[in-house]
Each structure stands twice: as structure tokens, then as C-alpha cells.
């Protein structure tokens, strides 16, 4: 694979691959670090890979191995991840979706996020973009941690349901 193609694919599928790693390890910061390692590995191996290979499928193979190594490095018992076969199956579900389907989902998410109130949008941004801890957000809003977590969960579900509805509409998926 040429360097330009690799860079283009990494930019296009960055969020898909990050999501894949995040789904496997359940820790966003770890997933970001693993994505960097993945990009380095892909750069090293690009010459062994076909120009028109399925990029997400190639990423899946690397991701599963990286997560296994990461888990080994950390003390057993401190890391909560799924069993090996489940890890592979979870990564495989990213591959099952057509690569173009992720674009449609991202676009639907953008439209749905525009409908959020300013307050909800700020909350989601503080939590998921700025990575502010739940405890701190709860304190800022004079809420209990549990109540704030429930609010976040409901917002995410509402967004997900909105995205699903939009994808059902003709011309979206």
C-alpha cells in the first residue's frame, strides 16, 4: 500500500478503528494509545499489504493482537476485558458493517446531535470530548454521580435511537 493511501485510509477510518479498540478495552485513553501503536504498525507493514485491501479488516487483525499484548502487559485481574473469542467477535462486528455504512452513521449522528438542547450538548461535549470525569460534572451541576450517569446514559440512548431512525429513512444507509 502506498503511503498516501495509508494516510488517507487512516484519516477516513480513524474513528471506526478507535471505536473498535474502545469496544474491546472499555477505556478510551487506552484505546487512543493503542490506535497510535496501530498506526505505527500499519506504517511498518504497508508494503506487505495490497493497495485495495479492506482497510477495516486489516485493522481488525492488528487491533486484536494489540489488545491481547496490552492485556498481557498489565497485571492480571486489574484489567477487565472480554475473553479472547469475544474480543475477536466484537472486532469482527466492525468489519461486518460496510465501510460506507460508518459514513452514513456519522452523518446521521451529526444531524441528531444538532437537535440536542444546548445544555445536553454541553454535557456530552464536556464528558466525551473534553473527558471531564463524571464526578466533576456531577459536582458542577449539583447532581449526584448516579443521577448524572443516568442522564448521560439516557442522552446516549436517545442519540443512538435517533441515528437508527434516520438510517431507516430511504437514502440514508
Amino acid at each position, binding site marked *: 500500500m502506498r503511503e498516501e493511501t495509508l494516510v488517507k485510509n487512516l484519516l477516513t477510518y480513524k474513528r471506526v478503528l478507535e471505536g473498535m479498540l*474502545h469496544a474491546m478495552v472499555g477505556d478510551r485513553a487506552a484505546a487512543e494509545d493503542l490506535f497510535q501503536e496501530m498506526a505505527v504498525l500499519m506504517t511498518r507493514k504497508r508494503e506487505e499489504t495490497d493497495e485495495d485491501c479492506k482497510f477495516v479488516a486489516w485493522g481488525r487483525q492488528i487491533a486484536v493482537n494489540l489488545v491481547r499484548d496490552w492485556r498481557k502487559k498489565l497485571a492480571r485481574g486489574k484489567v477487565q476485558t472480554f475473553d479472547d473469542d469475544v474480543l475477536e467477535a*466484537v472486532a469482527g462486528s466492525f468489519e461486518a458493517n460496510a465501510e460506507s455504512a*460508518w459514513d452514513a*452513521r456519522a452523518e446521521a449522528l451529526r444531524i441528531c446531535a444538532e437537535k440536542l438542547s444546548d445544555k445536553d450538548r454541553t454535557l456530552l461535549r464536556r464528558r466525551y470530548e473534553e473527558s471531564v470525569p463524571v464526578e466533576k460534572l456531577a459536582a458542577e451541576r449539583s447532581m449526584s454521580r448516579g443521577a448524572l450517569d443516568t442522564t448521560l446514559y439516557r442522552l446516549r440512548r436517545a442519540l443512538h435511537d435517533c441515528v437508527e431512525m434516520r438510517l431507516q429513512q430511504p437514502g440514508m444507509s
Partner: protein
Amino acid sequence: MSHPWDWDYLIHKHLSGEELTEEQRSALNDRLRKFPRLRKRLAEMAFEQAQMRDVLATSEGVPILIVPDTVREPAAVAAAPLLKPLPPIPWYRRPWILPAAAAAGFLVLVLGIVAWRNSANRAPFEVVKGEVRAEGGSVEVSAAAPALFRMSDGSEAELSPSSTAVFRGRVGDARQVVELNAGAGRFKVAKAPDTFKIETPAGRVTVLGTEFTVELRKQKKRPAAMAVSVTEGRVRVDARGEVRELGPGERHVFGAEPEEKRPEEKKPQPPPERKEARPVFNGVVRGKVVGKGDAHVLIAVDAVVSSRKDAAPDLAAAMPGRTIKVMVPGPKRKEGEPEVSKIPFLYVRKLAIGQEVSLDVRQTKGEDFMIGELDREQADWAVREERREGDKEPKKKARDPEKSPERDPKKED
């Protein structure tokens, strides 16, 4: 088999980096193994969370290139002029140029003054939380709760009730200067190359990216003392000639008499490390009594009726077939703890060898167990049996060895 879990909620917890209980993790693991639809849902929610950063982001940082005035676009030089340029005209040949330059200069001056006045009136902070009386950069926390302020560089200050301060914004080399005139403040300083300063009547704190607390303490016969404690990073404190650097976890009171130092001014201790919980079985087992002592019973376990959330699934599966020693909760107790109930003791005493029981047990040290909770029926049974025996042969009143012996009036006589 139906599960009590809300799978979406478990996925949300997993993606939020929260620790699932072993039971939740195990249940989610099994469910994901069996159901492709749930795996798809996890994939979609993880992707959406990653994508949310793009969707919700206010803006990406845009690099700005400042080109020196001397550099001209090369294209202008390269393009051949279609017309021959006019020779330059001296300024004195243009009579309108002086009044125009004067007008332009005046306009720039007026605009500059307006911009300066506006920037002077604009507060260099925003109130994130709390009730505050503010005028320009001066603030007073008016409610009984602390108020949180965010400054233009992203640094945060949490001022205690009744604190007064002035947010000066950028002053000289310092990107932020905050004057704390009374009260206390906790500062979380964004990392940046320029310094951040807290000025107080008792001294000055200069800092580069850290989290610390400054508290002004009134003293009867001396000027206010300043207590500084650092959570992260490093600060330099200059208080009436006493210069000292403080690192993470360090705290010092500047300008206080030794006897006025308060007892809580100890170095904050790091929180004790959490010990890894060893796997145990806690739950209700069914089995037969195969032996007993004064305060324990041996049960040959036939089945596990239920296991508690903190029980290790592997150990629960291994319970049937084992013979376990179940003890009565011991009489040893710490000061302030309630006295241990005698009912489990009575219950064990009444159990007969060969009797079938269902018993709530908690694993203690090693392989031993302790009675967890007796249900109402078991407790009633334990007590009822004792009463019946007591009816036939009334017990002597137990004497408390710590109390004085009962008086015998005859002896006294």
C-alpha cells in the same frame, strides 16, 4: 434464561471506563459471545462515542501564519504588467493627502480608545457555578457555597464563601493575575508557558500548570497568614521575604506564629492502596449437617441455592460436593460495633447431625465460612426451641462476672 441486566446500560458502563462487577462482566461477555446483534450494538455505540468528539467539538485549532510585512507575494512580481506603471508622485503634489491622513489617524485613535474601554470593562473570567457579586474583574462570593470561575486561559478558581478577589487577566509577562484579598481559593491552572500569579496581602504565589489552594487566615495581632497547599505541580511562594517552593502534597502556612499552626496542617497522606479482593464464595447453600462443635457446624454441600454479587462464579460452581466448616460470628468486636446476636449460636447448637439445612454463608479466612444471615424462620426456630426447653427446666439467671456478686441478705445479717 432471562437476565436482570439492561445490556445497553452495561455497554454504556463498559464504554465509560467504569469497572463492571465480575458478575456483570461475565454476563456481558457471555451475552456478546452468543448474540451478534449485541456485538453490533456495542460496535455502533463505541463508534458513536468516538465520533461524538467530531460532532460536538466547538472548533479545531487552526494554525495562523504571520507573514512579515517585507515579504510580498511572488506572483505579483512574476506577473507581467499590462500597463506601464505611472511614475511615483511626490506627496506635496497631492493636496488631499494631509487631511486624509489626519482623519484616518483620528479614526484609529477613537477606535483604539473604544476597544480599550470595552476590554477594560469585560470581565476576564466567567462564573461557572455559584452566587457572585461582580463588578468588572472584582468579585465577592455572596452565597454560603463556594463559587467556581473559569478564566480566559482555561484555568479555574474555586473561591470559598465570603472570599473577595480581583481577576486582572493578563498583566505583563503573567497570563493571569488574581488578587485574593480575603478568604480562600482553590486554583487549577491550565498548562501554558506564561506564569500564573496569585497576589495576596500576605504574599505572592507564582505557578506553571498545577492545582493548589491558597487560604488567607486572619490573626489577632498580626497581618493575615497565607496557607498554601499544592495538589499537583510546583509553585513558588514569596511571602514577606520568605521564599519557598512547594511540590505535590506539600503545605505551608506563611506568616503564621508557630503556636497558631493548626492541627490539620499535616502533610496530606496518600489514600491507602486498595487491596485486591481475593475470590470468595458468599451465598446460600443447601446440604446436610455432618458434624458440629460448640460454635461451628460442618455441612456437606449438595447445591448452591443462590450466590451473592461478590461471589466468584468459579467458586460457586465448585461448592457442591464440598464439606465446609461454618462458624458462628465471633464475639470479638471493635469498640462501637453492636453486640453480636446470640441467635446464630443458638441455631447451631440446635442443629442435629444428619439434618438438611439451607444456610447463608460468607467465606472468611482460608477455606472457612461464617453464618451470614439467618432468615426469620430459622431465627424463630432457634429461639423457640430454647424457650421450650426453658419452660421445662427454667435456667438460672446468668451472672455477669463484671458486676458485683449478688448480695446475700442473710450473710449481711
